[in-house]
Structures are given as C-alpha cells and as structure tokens.
C-alpha cells in the first residue's frame, strides 16, 4: 500500500503558503490537530482562511493563530469561547462567515463527494438565507447550499496506518472525516501510527485514499473546556 508517512508536523505542513484555505478538524478543543497548529504557528504563514466549527479559545487551538494575526477569514458555526476573535471581528481585522453547524458539515461532505449543491431546511427565513435560492419540496422550504473545499485539510485521529487509514476516538471524530475528503491535500496527525495491515479494514473511518501525509504526533495536551464531574 502507498506509504504516506512524513517525518514531522513541520514536514507535514510543507507547502502551506500565505493565503491558503485550510480546514481544521475539531469540535471546540476536542480532536484538534495540536501538532500541526503548533507547526503553523512556528511557520508564521498569514492571511489564512480557516474553516473549522469553532475558533479555539483565546490561548489554545486556532485561538493562538488568531493571536498571531495569521487568520484573515474564519468560516465556522460557533465562536463563542473566544474574546480575541470577538475583538478582531468587531474591529474589522477579521472576516467571518457563520454557518449552521449541519450546513457546514454537509457542505464539506459535498465538497469531498462531488456534489456541487444540495438543499437543506436549515436557515430558511433567517439571515443565512440571504442571497440563496429557496425552493419548496413536498410543501416545505429549503435553501440551496454549495460545496465547500480547501487547499489543505488538517485532521487529528486516534490511530492511523502508513497507508493513511484513520480511526478516530469518541467525539473527537466530529468534522475530521468529511474534511479529510474535501481538500487538495489532507494532512493527518495521529496518536498512534501503525504499519498498513494492522487496523481492521471494517473499523476504518477514513480510507487512506483521502490522506496525503501522515505522522505520529506527540505531547497531546487535549485541553478540556468544560470539565464537568459527577459527585458519585
């Protein structure tokens, strides 16, 4: 099977230049590609368009890239945990496009699946519908939404193999499987990298065809936003 392994996060993000359109996996801080974000901070690329459900928090995740002024535009569904984001947005430093979460997920899937447009009920009658075609099917109104693609998708998985196959864990899966399909180049960092043939083909969430570069990350912090505990 074709070997997709690269040596490091820095090697994995090679070729990402100023102005690139990136998709970054994760829901809140759950499942974000920590090693690649650190490499992007080191590299200092600017004017990025970042497509991600959230924008991290002030001092972690995509929030760090915002702090460094690397992000020109953010496409997300919820950015409520990030004060610096709000400041940049209100001051006009940052462009932002907010989308319904399901629309974001489905537009990314459509980008990977060769479906240029589809109809969804989310956003009918709201600001989100502005400028979009509305059409009724079976007596209900729907918006036409278009596919979303990127230059690079950067995802983090639990296990991966040298052929680029990925298995996610828990709710850290979220947007990553669709993002992996919707970019010209998909980069995967994994907690555990194994030889091709080790993972059960039946359990693979993302087939290796979608992954161009893979490496084993290290030092995962996996910061928790809302540590909520039961007494007993």
């Amino acid at each position, binding site marked *: 099977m074709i070997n997709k392994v690269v040596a490091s996060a820095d090697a994995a993000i090679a070729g990402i230049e100023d102005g690139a359109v990136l998709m970054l996996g994760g*829901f*809140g*801080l*759950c*499942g974000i590609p920590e090693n690649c974000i650190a490499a992007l901070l080191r590299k200092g690329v600017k004017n990025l368009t970042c497509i991600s*459900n959230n924008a991290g928090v002030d001092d972690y995740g995509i929030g760090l890239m915002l702090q460094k002024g690397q992000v020109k535009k953010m496409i*997300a*569904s*919820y*950015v*409520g*945990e990030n004060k610096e984001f*709000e400041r940049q*947005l*209100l001051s006009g430093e940052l462009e*932002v496009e*907010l*989308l*319904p*979460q*399901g*629309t*974001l*997920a*489905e537009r*990314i*899937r459509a980008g990977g699946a060769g479906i240029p447009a589809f109809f*969804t*009920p*989310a*956003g*009918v*009658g*709201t*600001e*989100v519908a502005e400028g979009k075609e509305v059409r009724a099917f079976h007596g209900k109104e729907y918006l036409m939404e278009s596919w979303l693609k990127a230059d690079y998708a950067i995802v983090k998985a*639990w296990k991966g193999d040298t052929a680029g196959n990925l298995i996610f*864990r*828990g*709710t*850290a*899966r*979220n*947007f*990553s*499987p*669709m993002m992996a399909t919707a970019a010209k180049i998909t980069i995967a960092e994994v907690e555990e990298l194994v030889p091709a043939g080790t993972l059960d083909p039946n359990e693979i*969430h993302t087939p290796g065809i979608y992954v161009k570069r893979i490496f084993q990350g290290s030092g995962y912090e*996996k*910061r*928790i*936003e*809302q*540590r*909520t*505990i*039961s007494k*007993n």
Partner: protein
Amino acid sequence: MLDKHQIAKRIARELKDGMYVNLGIGIPTLVANYIPEGIEVVLQSENGLLGIGPFPTEGAVDADLINAGKQTVTMLPGASLFSSADSFAMIRGGHIDLTILGAMEVSEEGDIANWKIPDKMVKGMGGAMDLVASAENIIVAMQHVNKEGKSKLLKRCTLPVTGVRCVKKIVTEMAVLEIIPEGGFKLLEKAPGVTVEEIRRSTEGKLIFEGEVPEMQF
C-alpha cells in the same frame, strides 16, 4: 414562579418512553436529571454521540468525550459515535423525536430567536438552525420575561430569527404554552401561585385561554 430546575422538571414530563431526544445548552441540559421513573429516553449530542450518560467521575474524565456544550460526559451501554455530517443527517432527517432548546424570543407564529444580538453578541448559531428547521417536535425552555421585565413571548421576534414557524411548546417560569397553527400562545398550564392575569401581562403576543387553566403538575 418556577426556578430553572423546576422548568426542567416540568419539561421532563413531556418525555415519552422510547424517545430519542436532543437537549440544548442551559436549562434543557438539566432535563436529563428529571427523567421520570419507568421512562427510557436516549439523548443525542450533535457533535456525534447517541446515548449520553451522566457526567464522569473525576477518574473517568475523557477529553475525547464531550457533549455539544463542550462538557465532559460518559456513554451509556448501547451508545454509538459518528461524524458531524452523520449527526446532522440524523437531525435533518427527522430521526430525533424531541428537541428541547433555549430561546431569547419566541413569536406567536412559532418563530424563534436564540443566536444573535446585533452589534452585541456574535457567537454564531452552532447547530440551532439545523435543529429548529428539522425537528417535528420542539419545546422551548425559557424565561417568560427578560432582565428588564419585557416579554420574550412576542407578536414578532425583534432579534434575528433562528427559524420560522417551528416551536410547538414553551415552558417558562410562569406557564406551559402551545403555539397554535393559526398563531398565538395557548395557555395550557400555569405555574403554582401564578395567575392568568400575570401571565397575560407578561405575554406580548396573543395569549389564548379557555375556562379554568390548570396548575402545572410535576
């Protein structure tokens, strides 16, 4: 007047055995604490989990397992995990029997506003627009009036809406109300110690009631 736990407890009585339910952030999340005896429901989290269990004990915290409010959770036996696209396919496809969410405003037509205050709050809609546009059965948990004492049950929403003609039922600290197809808040139940007149004064939209309005049961 009910506190938020009592609102959650009253909403929990709307649960029927075998329902799949999506609980929004805030009061709706509390509903999970009051599921009646003998009723089994399965809770969905739109970030990709069906079968949410209780919050973990200190030792069982898992950063890879959170709900849509980013709180650490556990899974019940029989839980399943999936991607965000699959999760919203589940929601959009009408497979969730009941959606419970908070609101800043609801109109007498069933429109809901809960995602944006222009020039003030720019957090984003998250999954709310998908949920309200897709669910057949939506219950809103909210305060009847805002901090300035103004009604949040309006003729028309003043804030940017999240969805139109979608809310079916509302539970507030004062009352249980139903949105009727012709438009209007039909008063189904009043909270203990609250009068119909008080509810009428706190409801800007058309309030409809007939005869004696029963008191809420828990």
